């Protein structure tokens, strides 16, 4: 779990000082206690199942088990826009060379 801490903190928020990182695993008797002031988070698994988590520890355990805050199958539009902008930017910078190259080849 310690290895995934960056991903966990990215999705669940910073680890509260008074919470110990414990792996609950598949223990059916364990009950996650809702954490005061923790804003409810919605997590998804690969099959599209949804779970609402109400404490940092609960969130951390689910993220550790492969759940994420991104709806599966959805497009990361920010990433796409970033790539598109990069292409536009470098394409624009290289426009002179690009035109020259096209003229030569054709």
């Amino acid at each position, binding site marked *: 779990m310690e290895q995934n801490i960056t991903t966990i903190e990215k999705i669940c928020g910073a680890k509260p000082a008074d919470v110990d990182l414990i792996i609950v695993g598949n223990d059916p008797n364990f009950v996650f206690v809702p954490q005061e002031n923790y804003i409810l988070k919605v997590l998804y698994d690969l099959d599209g199942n949804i779970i609402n988590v109400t404490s940092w520890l609960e969130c951390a355990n689910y993220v550790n088990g492969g759940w994420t805050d991104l709806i599966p199958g959805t497009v990361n539009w*920010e990433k796409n*826009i*970033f790539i598109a902008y990069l292409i536009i*930017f470098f394409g624009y910078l290289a426009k002179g060379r690009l035109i020259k190259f096209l003229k030569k080849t054709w």
Partner: protein
Amino acid sequence: MVKQNKNTLIRISILLFVIFIPFSLNNSSEAPDTKYLEISSISFYQTQTCNYSLFDFWKENIGNERVVIKADFFSSINCFGKVNGVDYIDDSFYVYIGTNLNINLLLQSLFWILLISFIKIPKEEDFSEKLKKKTSPVRIIFTALLFTSQIFTESKFYNLYNKNVDTSISSENFFILGVFVAYLIILKLSDDIITPRISVLMNYLPFIFLVIGTYSSSNINFYIIYFCLIGTKHFSTKTLTNKYSILYIALIFFWLFNQNLSNNYFDVDKIRGFANSENSQGSLIFWIIIFYFFVNGLLHVFKKYCHQLDFEVLKKNFLISGTLTVLFGFLGTISSYLNFINFYFFGQNKNGMSTFQSVAGNTWRGFSASAEALGEFYGIALLLTFYFIFKLKKVTFLEITSIGLILYGLIKTNDAAVLISLVVISTFFLSNKLTKTKKTAVKFIIFFGLVLVFLLIITYSFFNPGVSKDYDFLSQNLLIESLRNSYYFEDENLFVNNLVDNSNYKDISYLEDYEVVLSKSTRFLLENYISDGNISYLPNITSVVSVGSSLINRTDKWGLFVSRYNPNDIEFLFGSGPMQFNKFYNSHTIKFKDGLILPHSSILNILLFFGLTGIIVWVFGSIKLMTKNTSDIKYLFLFYSLNLLKSDSTLYVSSFILIIFIATQCQNHKSKILNIN
């Protein structure tokens, strides 16, 4: 010629593409057909969000007068330009169209840069000159980083206006990376397209009142970005050792060390794009740097290329831009769709008016976020036009039509101060020009001045019957107003109310919580009013300011300012820093809490930002500009300065640029009369 036509055609095609395509794309071809929006079809649009583009919806709802189109700032990228929600409020259907910061930055900039590209590049520009004008990549990257940092320093604003805002520093934070690359593209394009035209840019300055340049979902303005680029480009040790720079750096220390970090959020509302929304050290530093580079960029352009300024072209553009603001204001009122298009593509701070009815029973701001700022712009346009008519003794039919429309717009803004100052400045100018000797001119001015003041007082009293003529009341009106806005009146406080009604200010000053409840400025007015040092028959400061504010109808606004303004000594002397309102609005509790009521005087804004130091610099600078100038530009400066005393226009980027422009030209053309052949 053929090549030029081809280029123009390409630019027009791209312009149309930029306007129509992003708002015409649908998400799913499988979605059912659009429907005419009525009560029975609301649920259809509420369940089919993000499926229909604005233009598709428009096509189906032509003539549907109950539709009100609004921007949904909080939209994801894939829902950009699409119907994102529908609400039924007061018998109207509010339809929300998705906008997203990552797209807005590039799309809106592209539209504005394309518009500027229609300006012809001056012929004398040779290749070496063009090369010299290119900005180094390092400075472009620095500027892009600077503007991207705003997302971190004003995270509260950006979280409120944008979905998926991520302020973590990571190579996978594509939101920030996208914004950064968007800024890089904007800066590079601006440098390549606007900078070659920079020497003639001033002639097209009036169009900044049409294309306002504020990005949707953002707290920054396109002109700030571009002039900051110019500012960083010409930044050197020489600029840094300039006496104003040294003074500015000295002030920075006071601002930073005196900052009271409360981390409040300030709702920038109609001054979006040119005000700090947060009270954090990061945002203060951001606005300090931005303001410095922005002003330096403006001064550089306005000073260096003043020889290229053609006042006749400028006048023509004032008329065209003034006419277009009136016409687009009308269009935005008639059609809610056009209102949205105006908002998005002209970069308005706030949606234009949706009705012809005036706000609060008197003003109609039309296209602009501020009726006063628009009125002053119309005033400058008319003053310049009348000047040319007087000088050239000719006027065309088109000019008369434009003047008519602008006059109509000015009357609708109900900016009496502009109308009065237009008459006063014109009279002053005419009496100065029509008399041959200085002695007769002075006589004329005194005569006209007296007649005018008399006429104005009669007219004002006639049109404002509510204004009291009782000096005793007028002299304490401002004080009464500021007391009534204080926290004493949060609940019905009969005791204090009686004291105010009976003008018993001495007893108010004996109240136990007097120093806690009343702001320093209210106490200053009160103590001055009751001071034993007052000389009989000589008005004290409180009376002078109070009577003045009553005559120009500013008592309620200035009263509110006084009740709030509670600076410590350092703040009073040096202010809180450029575009900082947070401390002013959040540090002292008063009765009035809702809505954004600005100080309604640019002098008061200067006091807030730069303290008494700023006011001294402004007053002495203005006197120096006026007295050492024999050209006719000083009339424009005088006109604008008079109006700024009672308006907040300097808080709007367009008006701020215009006043800097006029002041700089006053300095540049000290003796030459406007360059008219």
